[in-house]
């Protein structure tokens, strides 16, 4: 049974659709990375998931059941910006969590705060942005919640603390808990997440296992002897997602079966045919950039 199931989520603010038909299933005990450019709607998805904003339409189920206040015993949330009370000390925030959540472990919270080098006696307004994020992260991970929803949990943190957060996420995964987090740091997502989803302009544009995406998606590159050439309809092959050409060089973004496509390209007269690996950043950029980002795109249906 999936931990979280989002079906056809739609959220409009007036005429503007921040989230437009978003569906996702997050299996229990998995780490899910949510990627997307700024303004893609990631934070809105989180807010709708957690009832912080009213969905215009669509359904969110937690373990098959809709969200009710009691569900929050099992969900820990780190918002994108600091929601700490400026006038309260960090220790008072720990106490607040202790009273609000049954499974909260104040000893663990203090340990985590020490790891992040945060003094519990300090008032929130005396903390830098990164330290406020660290406090919210520490409080969330001390919750021992089976589901963690983290919106940019490493924003503002120095590299050492970023590693800490990553280790915490991996630790939770090892304990069998689900983590869904959004981040602009693709390297972190590559490490910690086994599933990713890419959002753009309110829609889901890509979803899958990181390892599979990396294994399957490749660039097949070939060089033609003349500027004029025909691809024999290779660009229309369903396995070819994008086809870019720059003068004599053709690059095909293939969904899988790269070796076969390479052979086909060689058969069409290309030389120096290579299969190039894609890392997650490449996959992400291809997923969200417009199809005509590179010059002289060969549109599907021609040649």
């Amino acid at each position, binding site marked *: 049974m999936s931990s979280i199931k989002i079906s056809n989520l739609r959220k409009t603010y007036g005429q503007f659709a921040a989230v437009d038909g978003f569906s996702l299933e997050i299996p229990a005990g998995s780490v899910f990375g949510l990627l997307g450019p700024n303004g893609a709607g990631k934070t809105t998805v989180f807010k709708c998931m957690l009832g912080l904003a009213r969905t215009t339409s669509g359904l969110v189920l937690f373990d098959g059941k809709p969200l009710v206040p009691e569900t929050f015993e099992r969900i820990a949330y780190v918002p994108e910006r600091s929601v700490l009370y400026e006038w309260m000390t960090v220790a008072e925030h720990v106490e607040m969590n202790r009273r609000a959540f049954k499974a909260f472990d104040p000893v663990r919270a203090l340990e985590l705060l020490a790891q992040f080098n945060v003094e519990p006696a300090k008032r929130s307004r005396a903390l830098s942005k990164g330290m406020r994020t660290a406090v919210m992260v520490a409080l969330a991970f001390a919750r021992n919640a089976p589901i963690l929803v983290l919106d940019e949990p490493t924003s503002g943190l120095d590299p050492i603390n970023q590693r800490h957060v990553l280790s915490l996420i*991996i630790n939770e995964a090892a304990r069998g808990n689900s983590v869904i987090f959004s981040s602009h740091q693709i390297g972190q997502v590559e490490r910690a997440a086994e599933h990713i989803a890419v959002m753009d302009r309110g829609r889901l544009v890509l979803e899958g296992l990181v390892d599979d995406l990396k*294994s399957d998606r490749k660039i097949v590159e070939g060089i033609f002897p003349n500027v004029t050439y025909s691809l024999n309809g290779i660009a229309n092959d369903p396995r070819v997602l994008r086809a870019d050409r720059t003068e004599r060089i053709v690059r095909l973004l293939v969904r899988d079966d790269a070796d076969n496509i390479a052979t086909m390209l060689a058969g069409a007269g290309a030389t120096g045919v290579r299969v190039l690996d894609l890392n997650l950043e490449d996959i992400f950029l291809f997923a969200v950039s417009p199809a005509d980002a590179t010059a002289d795109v060969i549109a599907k249906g021609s040649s």
Partner: protein
Amino acid sequence: MTVDPRSGVPIYLQIVEQVKRSVALGILQVGEQLPTVKQLALDLTVNPNTVARAYRELEHDDVIETSPGRGSFVRDNGSTQSAKTAASDVARDALAIALREAKSVGLSRNDVRELIDTAIDRWFPEEQ
């Protein structure tokens, strides 16, 4: 062991290759215990399921064996045999990449044969 998440090679495959290389080079002895999935995940800062998948691949390739409750150990199916198998895998993959590269720049079969002979002379001089 290190992994490069920015590489186009999936992390689980990187782990598989590195374990195989370690076995081939004798860094990992036969019967030696591998770190637990959780421990390796934390050490490398990668997802535990990725490590688990790598271990499954290694088991499928007969490089390690896993006993529930005891852990994962380098397989003892003839020490030279497993080392050699591992080494062969590594070398074969590297050769395939080299040959594909050669072909892509337009070398002929004979060109490649010459290159290989020169290389063997250089690397295995005592066996001439």
